[in-house]
């Protein structure tokens, strides 16, 4: 007699309704909108956009700069990860690399752009240090720089994780078989990483291609798809039909990227066992790796330095005495501090609602007896949310919910974030849930538990580390995201990232940097506290196992 699983069916229906209402319907509306133009239904919008030189130029620019960024970010990330996994440099230094490499994730991309302007611009911090401007920041080079910083942490995490799953004993095998060092390197490091390296490039390309924050600040006259899209929807002459077409065009590379990622999964090498061996002594290798790592991190940090310097001096670049007046001004300015409170509220609600949604969805796929087809629906949702760029979701929401009671509400922003960032935390939940003992529910049911009781008493307490991780993932992303919310945040539901975009018009850069600092500090606190708890929990569990 199978259990009836009424609760799980209710959860399943809830998940489906959320994604039907806030993903399927908006995206379909967007698609329909793209065929609607000048009173007629047809391909006229597509023909118009594609035959324009401007758009094709922007598309070409997007591809070139995103591709370049993807290659550079992956190479740099490989260096950092290699230094940690394959050299004998100081352990503390390795820890520092790990920490600093992911730091950019805690800031909105729009901030990177301004940070680049203030470091490499005409009056920039680094320009003054070097005595001359190193490169033209508006346009290709600025974008490239921004994208590399943006995607480096993601690439780093990917490569770093895969390297951790490579069985290092094979290096010894290769060496005793008489391989030359280069052959060993290719065979035991590069070969097992090929899939991940390619995946990293695809992922970085996708992120750069769909990001709006960086081109918004340093794009200049170098048009990319994201800026075209923004101008069509919110520019001086908005045209929703044309905007919808551009959004659809943005979707194409995204779909290709995700398909490629799936295909590349096959190339991942799986080892039965991961063993650590002592890494061969090689001072030259260690030296080179340390120097390069330090260089990469130093350049990155020097850019972020301005975020700390500019708002803490009287008037950059003319009066450079330390002062807290800008920070105080922001904290005292009700409208600015109010925006910070909005952001916090949105981030906390996003995390909570995201937690419930991903947990429910993962329970349905990992721990229920629902049919494979039903589970497949949730898997597809996860895949689709991974494919759709934030800008596209934002525009779709704008088209569908304008004029409804949901327009300009926090709820809309929160649901948008939950849907947009669903994929990764869902997979985290599913992974952990499927690793927990599958007999628990049966055992507990035999002891008289209802399903819900088992979930609260047994499953959830064993999920705490993952639950906290999911919370922190949603929180940080909700704090830094700009691409979707820029289209749906209203005057009263302004969050920090959209406020930064607004402040850009009035060239109030002190405020921009103070707000960015607030985001950074908040994210650091949340990540720090949750990370500490997660670490302690998993360390405790490990200790007890010994």
């Amino acid at each position, binding site marked *: 007699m199978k259990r009836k699983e009424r609760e799980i069916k209710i959860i399943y229906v809830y998940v489906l309704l959320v994604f039907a209402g806030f993903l399927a319907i908006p995206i379909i509306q967007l698609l329909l909108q793209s065929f609607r133009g000048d009173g007629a239904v047809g391909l006229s919008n597509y023909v118009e956009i594609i035959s324009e030189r401007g758009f094709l130029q922007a598309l070409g620019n997007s591809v070139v700069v995103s591709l370049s960024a993807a290659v550079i970010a992956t190479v740099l990330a490989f260096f950092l990860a290699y230094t940690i996994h394959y050299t004998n440099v100081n352990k503390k230094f390795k820890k520092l690399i790990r920490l600093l490499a992911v730091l950019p994730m805690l800031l909105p991309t729009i901030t990177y752009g301004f940070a680049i302007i203030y470091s490499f611009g005409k009056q920039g911090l680094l320009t003054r240090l070097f005595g001359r401007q190193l490169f033209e920041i508006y346009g290709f080079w600025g974008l490239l720089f921004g994208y590399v910083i943006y995607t480096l942490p993601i690439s780093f995490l990917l490569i770093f994780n895969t390297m951790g799953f490579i069985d290092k004993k094979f290096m010894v095998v290769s060496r005793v078989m008489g391989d030359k060092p280069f052959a060993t390197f290719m065979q035991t490091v590069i070969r097992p990483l090929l899939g991940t390296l390619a995946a990293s490039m695809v992922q970085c390309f996708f992120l750069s291609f769909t990001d709006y924050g960086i081109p918004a600040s340093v794009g200049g006259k170098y048009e990319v798809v994201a800026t075209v899209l923004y101008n069509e929807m919110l520019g001086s002459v908005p045209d929703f039909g044309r905007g919808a077409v551009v959004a659809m065009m943005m979707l194409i590379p995204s779909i290709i990227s995700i398909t490629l990622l799936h295909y590349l999964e096959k190339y991942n090498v799986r080892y039965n066992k991961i063993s650590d061996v002592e890494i061969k002594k090689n001072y030259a290798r260690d030296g080179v790796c340390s120097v390069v790592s330090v260089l990469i991190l130093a350049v990155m940090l020097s850019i972020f330095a301005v975020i700390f310097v500019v708002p803490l001096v009287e008037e950059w670049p003319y009066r450079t005495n330390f002062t807290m007046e800008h920070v105080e001004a922001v904290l005292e300015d009700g409208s600015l501090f109010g925006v910070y409170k909005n952001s916090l509220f949105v981030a906390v609600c996003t995390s909570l609602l995201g937690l419930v949604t991903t947990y429910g969805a993962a329970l349905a796929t990992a721990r229920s007896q629902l049919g494979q087809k039903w589970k497949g629906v949730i898997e597809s949702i996860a895949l689709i949310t991974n494919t759709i760029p934030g800008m596209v979701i934002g525009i779709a929401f704008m088209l569908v919910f304008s004029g409804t009671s949901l327009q300009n509400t926090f709820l809309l922003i929160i649901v948008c974030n939950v849907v947009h960032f669903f994929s990764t935390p869902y997979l985290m939940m599913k992974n952990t849930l499927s690793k927990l*003992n599958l*007999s*628990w529910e049966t055992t507990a*049911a035999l002891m*008289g538990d209802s399903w819900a009781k088992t979930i609260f008493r047994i499953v959830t307490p*064993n999920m705490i580390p993952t639950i906290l991780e999911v919370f922190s993932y949603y929180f940080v992303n909700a704090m830094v995201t700009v691409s979707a919310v820029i289209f749906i945040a209203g005057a009263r539901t302004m969050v920090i990232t959209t406020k930064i975009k607004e402040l850009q018009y009035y060239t109030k850069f002190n405020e921009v940097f103070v707000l960015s600092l607030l985001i950074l500090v908040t994210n650091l606190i949340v990540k720090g506290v949750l990370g500490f708890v997660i670490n302690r929990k998993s360390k405790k569990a490990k200790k007890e196992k010994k």
Partner: protein
Amino acid sequence: MLELQHIKKSYDGVTILQNIDLEIQDGEIVSILGPSGCGKTTLLNLILGITDVDEGHIFFDEEDITAVPMEKRGFNIVFQDYALFPNLNVYQNITYGLRNKPDISTKEEVDELIRLLGLEEHLKKKIEQLSGGQKQRVALARTMVMKPKILLLDEPLSALDGVIKESIKEKIKQIARDYHLTTIIVTHDPEEALTLSDKVLIINEGKISQFGTPEEIIAKPKNKFVKDFILNQLEIKRNNIFTLFQNDIRRNLQVVNV
């Protein structure tokens, strides 16, 4: 008495079990023995009620329980991996069922079980701190608190090593005897099955190969499978052990001769 009549079960068109007819008397220890993939775990699941039968009926004490849901049958199981709850300590695990059915066992009965299974000194420990044998005993105690009408054990000894195995065997026998409890054990190890149980049910390719006491099986193997698979294995084991001890005996003799 547990009675299975003409049980059939298939998954996705593949027949796992067919023509299963079986009677198990109260208080008997019965082992279900067979190679992996023979359908023995499916049979266990059918009796427990996790899985529905396709055809046939299951009776318990003359009552047809084929359509009775798992929770209402009153049987209980100890899984191969024990399924202990790691967020609760040993005592909380043992008394978990009392949170839902406070009257099912008295404090004295619980204490008696804990004493019988030798768990007094481990009650405050976390599950991760226990050895395999201790985990098995905790899982047994937790199940016994529920006073099951039938106790099902899925490969109860396969994760344990030598000496522990023998002591758990004794505990299982003792519990079945003391509580007059029908106990059904799934195993793939002939030695385990034949030394632990009153009756052994040998299954091969979804059908009953032989059902009888260990003595009957050794003396009168019903078919080639029982002979080749079951008896042959035991014979090899016996010879190996015999060879080992023969050397020992010879040496002892030499010592005496000198």
